[in-house]
């Protein structure tokens, strides 16, 4: 039966290829149906699997971990296209297995959607699970965040493999108590950085101890609810970090972890956390330090994550923000930059964005500094305009242009520095519109712009 399923799957992949279609998800969806929802159980994987999950940073961390092993000469399989649901992982394995369903590789490195961790890894044996963070994101797809954490928590109750957790995120760190018998729980932690605050700066969740309900005490908040926390009643948060990022200086940028100093290309506290997770995996698997250093110091992002464009002579930086934390981070970067600037905010509410746009009210717009004008666009252009207006920003300086090309033209019509924030489904159309403008009116679109 399993062989037949694999045969069918392989034929679908071939057919799609013949039709010049990307076989990213469809074969998996079909197999999901014919295998009665156990799409990945037909594969035989003998090599270790490393899974990466969390709300923010999955793709970055997955790619960096993959590089650690690739540069060590390992033959790895990774879901680079970000097909991170069970059906996407099934499609990936279909392409890499033989007719008996055996997957040949030294390692599987799989970015895995938060809600799909239990279903995928109840069918495939997992060596290491890396959990980065839990933020409000696409809540209406997953139900409430608590339900999501509960799901992963139940999985962790019987999991005995390596569990690498963000020790500064109470939502994540609590998973470390799910299975008291698991001796392979490892926390990563970062020391206070220059923009850390004593009080919480951005709206967030998880400020109460999940075990006893007591308010959590924080030594400092790095951003949102991420920081050095502790429950004074039950001691939740007391742990010995497996790896600690210290000496964080984002001006340079530079940080030290496990005795080695790294000079990453990206200057956000986000990136420090992501790279500390990468360093934790490197330490666990005994990766040569030279390799770890080259991965961490060279890693940069494209595809609308702090990507630069030139609109004639005007520099524009585009950043994806799929939740308040991402948007607040971008606003921080924008504020910390000297001089006047203008902002284009593109907000869509397509299914993949999670239909609901109320998360924009958790963005702290009152921090705007030297922002001279705001253009809004996307299917919810007016929602974001109302949001920014009610934060106290002068409505006369807000221009609503639902059409993206109109919005980019409006943004580029005045001189000066530009920032663009786009949410999940808005980011690719926004990139395209910025490129179209550059092609038509001069300018360029590159990471070096």
């Amino acid at each position: 039966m399993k062989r037949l399923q694999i045969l069918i799957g392989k034929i679908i992949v071939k057919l799609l290829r013949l039709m010049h279609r990307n076989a990213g998800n469809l074969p998996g969806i079909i197999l999901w149906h014919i295998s009665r929802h156990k799409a990945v159980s037909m594969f035989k994987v003998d090599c270790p699997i490393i899974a990466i999950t969390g709300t923010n940073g999955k793709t970055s961390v997955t790619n960096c971990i993959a590089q650690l092993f690739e540069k060590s000469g390992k033959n790895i399989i990774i879901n680079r296209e970000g097909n991170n649901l069970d059906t996407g992982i099934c499609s990936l394995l279909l392409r890499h297995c033989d007719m008996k369903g055996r997957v040949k590789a030294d390692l599987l490195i799989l970015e895995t959607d938060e809600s799909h961790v239990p279903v995928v890894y109840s069918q495939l044996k997992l060596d290491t699970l890396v959990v980065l963070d839990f933020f409000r994101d696409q809540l209406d797809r997953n139900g409430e965040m608590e339900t999501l954490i509960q799901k992963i928590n139940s999985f962790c109750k019987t999991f005995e493999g390596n569990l690498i957790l963000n020790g500064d995120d109470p939502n994540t760190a609590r998973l470390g108590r799910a299975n008291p018998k698991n001796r392979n729980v490892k926390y990563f932690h970062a020391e206070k950085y220059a923009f850390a605050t004593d009080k919480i700066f951005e709206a967030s969740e998880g400020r109460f101890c999940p075990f006893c309900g007591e308010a959590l005490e924080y030594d400092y908040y790095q951003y949102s609810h991420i920081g050095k926390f502790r429950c004074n009643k039950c001691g939740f948060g007391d742990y010995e970090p497996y790896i600690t990022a210290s000496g964080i200086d984002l001006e340079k940028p530079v940080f030290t972890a496990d005795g080695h100093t790294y000079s990453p290309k990206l200057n956000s506290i986000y990136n420090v956390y992501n790279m500390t997770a990468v360093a934790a995996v490197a330490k666990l698997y005994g990766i040569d330090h030279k390799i770890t250093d080259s991965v961490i110091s060279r890693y940069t992002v494209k595809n609308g994550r702090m990507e630069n464009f030139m609109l004639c002579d005007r520099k524009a930086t585009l950043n994806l923000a799929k939740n308040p934390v991402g948007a607040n981070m971008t606003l921080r970067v924008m504020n910390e930059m000297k001089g006047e600037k203008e902002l284009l905010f593109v907000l869509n509410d397509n299914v993949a964005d999670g239909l609901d746009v109320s998360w924009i009210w958790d963005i702290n717009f009152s921090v705007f500094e030297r922002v001279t004008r705001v253009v809004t666009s996307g299917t919810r252009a007016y929602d974001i305009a109302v949001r920014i207006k009610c934060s106290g920003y002068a409505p006369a300086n807000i221009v609503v242009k639902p059409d993206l090309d109109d919005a980019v033209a409006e943004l580029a019509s005045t001189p000066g520095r530009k920032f663009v924030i786009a949410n999940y489904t808005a980011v690719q159309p926004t990139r395209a519109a910025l490129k179209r403008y550059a092609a038509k009116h001069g300018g360029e679109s590159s990471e070096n712009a």
Partner: protein
Amino acid sequence: MKTLKILHMYADMLDLYGDGGNMEIMKYRCEKRGIGCQVDRYSVGSEMPDFSAYDLIYIGGGADLEQQHISADLMKCREGIVRAYEQGTFLFLICGGYQLMGKYYRDADGNDIPGLGLFDYYTVAPSSRKLRCIGNIVVRAEIGGKKVDVVGFENHGGQTKDVKTPFGKVLCGNGNCAKSSHEGYFEKNVIATYLHGPCLAKNPEVADYMISYCVNRGSDEPVKLAELDDSLEKQCRQVMLGRLLKK
């Protein structure tokens, strides 16, 4: 002009889907008119406030876990809240705040979280956490004698039953129960609703109704609120109504 006194309860625990934004909007709309607006906060562990000293008490929505955490504390406030309500303090209640003012909330595992019992309705969550009322919603409400199509976003498992005086008629979406005809609970000094978004973002009439109520409370000569430029809010609502009601 007088200063509005608002008590925002459990802001640190009950704040889903931008509910905190409602307070930002209330302040904004008061300040634009030169009306003072003081928002105090109360949460678990705070000193017991004088509830009757407030013009409006606001409670937002939260996840099940947070609702469990606050329910015992809320019971301690019962007497004070009931007295304030009877003396005319406005109650603005979203989602969890709405549910907890009823008789009880039965969660997905069948546990009853007692409500304050201020109103007759009660709420039962379906045993499957997957069954939720989720999506954009339009409710036709009568606010200050005018019909207003209130637009928001609902996301609740709980099914609220036995509501005698609903907030409005459902034109699109679910309402108090899955596919029900009515949404929320209404009295002259109570608006209780499942609408997030936040609720007031696209519906300035609802905010102004409450501001007007509070400003004119106990006054013999009611004042009319100054008009504000709500063109962005109106266009925002128009876009959504056009999309949701055209089918």
